[in-house]
């Protein structure tokens, strides 16, 4: 997106989430059109109308279920117009304790955070490589940087997603397709309401939106929404395993 006046269509996978909507609003404010994809898109009509009215752009809704692998080809083919920028914010935290006991719950978390987002972004990458242009943004997580006792089912799936994006970027780097990995850190959303999160490490959804826009405009590869998270994770990943395994982070 070197030409700032060129307006693209941005597809948000996970368009219902606060982070997804915040990213959409930031791109809408720049004059880009949006497609919001969600499992139950009709209920997003007020958001659709609001974003379209505030920014005088087109916003479309479309049905998408990240766990429905069969439908993915059809979903990608049916999108009109084809999006120049595809952002996936899909994820599912789950309950770590439940994920430890219940393989069905754990499978849901693994598929929602890794398998589904990786497969759909991979399909979009195929099209973009053929067109020699396009941008893929995967919202992964700092939890994927190192497995921890408190959320390793979720974290391992995010680690898989991060590795997938890294490989995809490597493959696409010389083919005109940009791949961005975004690691938000803590975000103040309804999901984290009531949690005792450190203010300096917690971003508002709008900050995630701004970070994604900046990363896309500047052609960045991997971004932490709050730069301090880069430092925090460098320290956490540097701790030798024999000490790390005894910590309670």
């Amino acid at each position, binding site marked *: 997106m070197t030409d700032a006046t060129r307006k693209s269509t941005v597809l948000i996978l996970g368009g219902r989430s606060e982070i997804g909507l915040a990213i959409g609003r930031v791109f809408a404010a720049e004059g880009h059109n949006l497609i919001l994809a969600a499992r139950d898109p009709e209920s997003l009509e007020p958001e659709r*109308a609001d974003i379209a009215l505030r920014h005088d752009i087109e916003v479309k809704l479309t049905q998408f279920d990240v766990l429905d692998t069969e439908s993915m080809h059809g979903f990608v083919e049916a999108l009109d117009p084809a999006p120049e920028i595809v952002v996936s914010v899909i994820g599912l935290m789950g309950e770590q304790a439940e994920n430890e006991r219940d393989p069905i719950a754990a499978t849901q978390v693994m598929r929602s955070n890794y398998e589904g987002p990786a497969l759909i972004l991979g399909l979009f990458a195929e099209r973009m490589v053929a067109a020699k242009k396009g941008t893929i943004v995967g919202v992964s997580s700092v939890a994927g940087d190192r497995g921890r006792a408190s959320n390793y089912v979720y974290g391992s799936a995010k680690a898989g997603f991060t590795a997938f994006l890294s490989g995809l970027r490597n493959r696409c780097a010389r083919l005109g397709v940009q791949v961005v990995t975004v690691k938000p850190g803590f975000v103040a959303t309804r999901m984290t309401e009531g949690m005792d999160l450190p203010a300096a490490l917690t971003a508002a959804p709008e900050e995630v939106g701004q970070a994604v826009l900046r990363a896309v405009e500047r052609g960045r590869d991997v971004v932490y929404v709050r730069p301090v998270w880069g430092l925090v994770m460098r320290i956490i990943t540097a701790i030798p395993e024999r000490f790390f395994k005894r910590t309670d982070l």
Partner: protein
Amino acid sequence: MAALRAAVGLGGVIARGNGRAYGDSAMGAAATIDMRRLNRMLAFDPATGQLVAEAGVILGDVITAFLPRGWFPYVTPGTKFVSLGGAIAADVHGKNHHVDGSFGAFVDWIDVVGADGEVTRASRSSNSELFGWTIGGMGLTGVILRAAIRLRPVESAWIRQETIPAPHLAAAMEAFEAADAATYSVAWIDCLASGGSLGRSLIMFGEHAETGEVPSAFRKHPFATPKRRAKTVPVNLPGAALNTWTVKAFNALYWRKGLSSPRKSLVDWDRYFYPLDAILGWNRIYGRRGFLQFQCALPPKSSEAGLRALLGATAAAGQGSFLAVLKRFGIQESRFSFPMEGYTLALDFPATAKTLALLDRLDAIAVDHGARFYLAKDARLAATTLHRSDPRADILRDMRREAGLDQAFASAQSERLLL
């Protein structure tokens, strides 16, 4: 929606928008419903200029979204930070009341959550009683959820302003009457001037500028607004910062500046309508104790005598009012809205014991001259004064009791004023 229903079920609640009322209008008797997240714009019809939006939408966001497309609110109060729900509940007025009426005149319909938690759509043709009582009803008839308001087509983001100095009150009123056709008019009064200069004021008239009148630098983009940086008042000023002498000095300077400035100028919408919004936290100049505002509307017959008496009492008390505004009101019939034909005077004072005593005197003068009080600005009026000044207060109270609204919806203000 379920959460809103549950909140209404608590009883003694009031909806709160963006918190721009000056007193306790939007503080619930038992609980307060924060409407700020119900803030989506839902539909716009460019054929009629009708915008449908949720009540928590901020007026400034409407301007940001629609001015670039050639639309502006028909009526705007002195701050763009009000919510649509708040603007309807207080039936706010602007500098164009004498020609266009109040905010409510441009509301096509509202959706109101009643005491039973059900949503009723009300307009001039259906559920007209609910519509009439809710516009200007200070949230006491239910929670305004959505509204359809109409916007005005404009050709630019600019206002053609003309400033006319008036050496005394009679001259100011004459100027208002003579320019009755002007779209916008408002007067700043030097309320420390007394004797023959009582009511000395600068009257500012305004018209939406046409495309051809836009400053040449903006001719290509007539809806663009020049950037201005928001200033902030970072700390509360000490209480002594505003006293008779500083206010007197400010007023004298402002008056002289008004005399020497060019009478005609082009001003962008933001500077014209919202000069105070440019200074975030402007209220802090009054110090930690804050400020109180007195605002009443006087009928045409007793306007001059009433204004004379109010300004005389203010000047005699030596109480500097930093911001004193006079405005002509046009005809308005309403269930409980503030505006009525005549003049409205607004005076800001630092909140002190001396001010409270002065406000009681001003109340008495106002009642003697048939005045009405603006509840969106009120924080301390006595129930007896309100009910004596406005027979509609009794009717509202009885209506609320009969309709079972008095248990469901109540603010600190409605309890204080026995509404």
